[in-house]
């Protein structure tokens, strides 16, 4: 189908206001939160209903046009990077909260609904939505679903996948399936929902999502502890977890990160080699006793200062400092490159040491801010794009850090996803057999590989389908895949 004809077809489905085709306008969709990769999409469409999505995707299927769904575009691995000669389907006009069902602790939303809206919607009822990625004031539920987003509180409460109970999904052939039980648990059949969540948009587009709501805890207590270095802070983390406590959150920042945050948002953090923010929540008596235990452990590990949040405002200030960490890097460096690797908690010390060595080797600064409780690191490699060659060097150093994490039994990514950014590292973590087996799942959901092609896997697997409505495989045509 010619581009002009495709525009007309899309306009007939969405009206002229639902189709973006001017070159200049298209450019604003060329990347997501990861700005080192840019592709201008051929066409951007903005559906308002599930039926729109279905008709758009059906057209793509019939014409063999690859498509990429995008939520708020905050992803940090290029998961919503457009494909050339492809359609970008932007879900931001599907923003209705469809049903609030407090008795069953469920809420049904459209994918464009912003994460934090969900908690706001049910706050008066004493409920909230647990997954809280740092991007939660901007990022959409659909995007969270695609990436299986985490957040600072997932150590205790789990990730998006533990809180999504059902989804209506438009598959790549334009058909609609309802997966997961929704309000009732244990739908018979394969765990299709668990397979779909975190598939980075490669298995279809969710158009309606049922989430689990959680009851607000009776008591929340938060402290901030300063240490001489990350090793001592790490000792406190081990002491807390080893004591049988499951904190709601336990976050670490190193000196460089503290400096940046202090300059940017002035939370009044102490000058220290490392800071821990520890939050406990739950029944009051339990929290009170365990909070004392946490203070004790921090003291045993030579905390130079312990601040206890006296009220919600002070707690909010602690978290403001933490959640601003990425943005604050702009105050101490022009550019940064962030990784998202995970290491077993017991390897944290070794890996931090290795990162520091690598930083010295490359003569580059690396700031560390991370979810210490689950070993999810966010090393930020600082550089200046104006200095020739520095960006490449930063990326190389970040790559070395990822490999160090893998060597210590970790994972490439804890919550940002593989996207385009980390797919080259997939063979370091998985064998060809592993990846080909994973892609059987893709073959069942999207045999022609039209939904967000070129993501996650370095070499897409073709599924041995008979030629469908089109002959040449589009991702093959685009040089993104070879035939098996």
């Amino acid at each position, binding site marked *: 189908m010619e581009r002009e004809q495709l525009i007309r077809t899309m306009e007939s489905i969405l009206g002229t206001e639902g189709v973006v085709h001017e070159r200049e306008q298209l450019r604003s969709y060329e990347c997501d939160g990861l700005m080192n990769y840019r592709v201008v999409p051929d066409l951007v469409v903005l559906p308002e209903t599930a039926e729109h999505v279905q008709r758009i995707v059906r057209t793509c299927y019939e014409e063999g046009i690859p498509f990429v769904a995008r939520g708020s575009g905050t992803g940090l691995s290029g998961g919503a990077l457009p494909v050339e000669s492809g359609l970008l389907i932007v879900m931001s006009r599907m923003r209705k909260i469809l049903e609030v069902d407090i*008795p*069953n602790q469920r809420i049904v939303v459209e994918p464009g609904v912003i994460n934090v809206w969900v908690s706001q919607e049910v706050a008066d009822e*004493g409920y909230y939505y647990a997954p809280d990625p740092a991007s939660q004031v901007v990022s959409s539920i659909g995007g969270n679903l695609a*990436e*299986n987003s985490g957040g600072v509180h997932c150590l205790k409460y*789990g990730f998006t*996948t*533990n809180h999504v109970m059902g989804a209506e999904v438009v598959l790549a052939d334009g*058909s609609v*399936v*309802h*997966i997961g*039980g929704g*309000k*009732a648990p*244990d*739908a*018979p*059949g*394969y*765990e*299709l929902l*668990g*397979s779909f969540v975190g598939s980075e948009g490669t298995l279809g587009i969710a158009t309606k999502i049922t989430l689990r709501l959680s*009851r607000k*805890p009776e008591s929340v207590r938060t402290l901030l502890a300063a240490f001489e270095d990350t090793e001592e802070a790490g000792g406190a983390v081990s002491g807390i*977890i*080893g004591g*049988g*406590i*499951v904190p709601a959150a336990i976050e670490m920042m190193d000196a460089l990160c503290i400096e940046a945050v202090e300059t940017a948002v002035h939370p009044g953090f102490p000058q220290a080699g490392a800071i821990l923010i520890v939050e406990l929540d*739950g*029944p009051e*008596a*339990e929290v009170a*006793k365990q909070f004392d235990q946490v203070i004790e452990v921090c003291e045993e590990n030579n905390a130079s200062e312990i601040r206890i949040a006296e009220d919600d405002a002070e707690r909010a200030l602690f978290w403001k400092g933490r959640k601003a960490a990425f943005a604050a890097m702009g105050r101490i460096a022009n550019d940064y490159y962030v990784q998202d690797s995970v*290491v*077993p*908690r*017991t390897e944290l010390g070794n890996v931090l040491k290795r990162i520091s060595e690598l930083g010295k080797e490359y003569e580059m600064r690396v700031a560390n801010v991370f979810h210490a409780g*689950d*070993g*999810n690191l966010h090393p930020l490699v600082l550089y200046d794009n104006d200095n020739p060659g520095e960006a490449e060097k930063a990326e190389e150093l970040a790559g070395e850090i990822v490999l160090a994490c893998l060597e210590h039994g970790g*994972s*490439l*990514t*804890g919550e940002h996803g*593989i996207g385009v950014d980390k797919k080259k590292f*997939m063979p370091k*973590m*998985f*064998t060809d*057999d*592993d990846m080909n*087996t*994973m892609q059987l*799942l*893709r*073959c069942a*959901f999207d045999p022609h590989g039209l939904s967000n092609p070129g993501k996650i896997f370095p070499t897409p697997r073709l599924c041995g389908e008979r030629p469908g409505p089109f002959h040449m495989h589009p991702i093959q045509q685009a040089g993104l895949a070879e035939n098996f």
Partner: protein
Amino acid sequence: MDTRTENVSLEDLQKIVGEEHAREATDEDAVDGVMPQFVAEPGSVEETSELMKLANDGGLTVAPRGSGTKMGLGNPPRDLDLIVSTVRMNEIIEHVPGDQVVRVQAGVRLDDLQVQLATEDQMLAVEPPERGAGATIGGIVAANSSGPLRYRYGTIRDLIIGITVVLPDGTIAKAGGKVVKNVAGYDLGKLFTGSLGTLGIIATCNFRLHPRPEAGQTVAVELGDTLSAGQAAQAMVHAQLVASAVELHWSEDHKLLTVLIEGIPPGVEDQVETASYLLKGFGDVRTLSDEEVKYLGPLDPPRVGDEDVAIKIAHPPVELTGVLDSILGATERRGVTPRITGHAGTGITYVALSGGDEIARVQAVDELREIWVRRGGSVVVQKAPVQAKKMLEAWGPAGDYLGLTRRMKDKFDPRGILNPGRFVGGI
């Protein structure tokens, strides 16, 4: 003899797993009355792979088996030549207490694993009903077995963080890893959870662990009628309690809602007090003694006699009263006796149907299924005599995802050798 099994001899199997680990099947190996030819017990992932390749090339149909505690789940197999038993793959590969993570082979028994984990005050937070009978990790994952603790910790799909599987063509593939937080690649661990051995054989699993609670008490309220059962459950669900389980017992002798509170002592005492206060509007409340907890605490599904039909109704939790009324209605009219327990907080109700004739029991299931599927739930047969199974589809209707489910099966098991017929939609 079956023509397929002419392609493969006992000696072929023994060559792979050793002479003493492959044998002719006996009556006890039958699955819903279908007799396999052979039983093989591989001792490693590699042996499992070789066995599968042999079976796949020879066109042998295969049923994976752990301790065999859930072989009654699903439809009777269309065909069965070979049972691949994981019992010899029973190694706890790695337990790192500081990481709260464990890696195990599929044949490890849950009870054995818990003993090992308890030495470090940790546990795998799942207690399926078959644990005492020797249920293995692989079987629990494959059948997505769960128990009362799912109220607090979720089901095994929420605890599994990595998996190694063997596909019918012998491919050994892994996904996930040994860190709790991990979004690299597709989540095959979840896909295989509840797949009932129809996609591949689960060889090893990695799980996240939880600290063992220091203390626990169970609060119970006597229920007068089905309405108070539903209301009491809702009162618990919406309180700021952190209960480990909210359970229903409904029999001639006992009509109780029990709430398991666990944690550290001061918290438990406090919460027991709150729970008792909230429940006293629904009936007499007491804290169960240790002795009583054994039979009135969080309970397993009711025991099932040979002639009984056992079902699991999954429903929106708020519908508990309606579920109970529908069970009582569907059984009373037919002279069938129901025995009911359930995870009242999560919307799972188990019923064992006895008495009346077989047709009556089957009709009662049909009636319940008609009601609860229409209202967004499901009714799955957990166990039934083969005759009853012929009249009842074990899983009930699948939704609009059945086509996708079939495609998934075709991709993983193109020759259809794994557990043919036992799964949803005759897969």
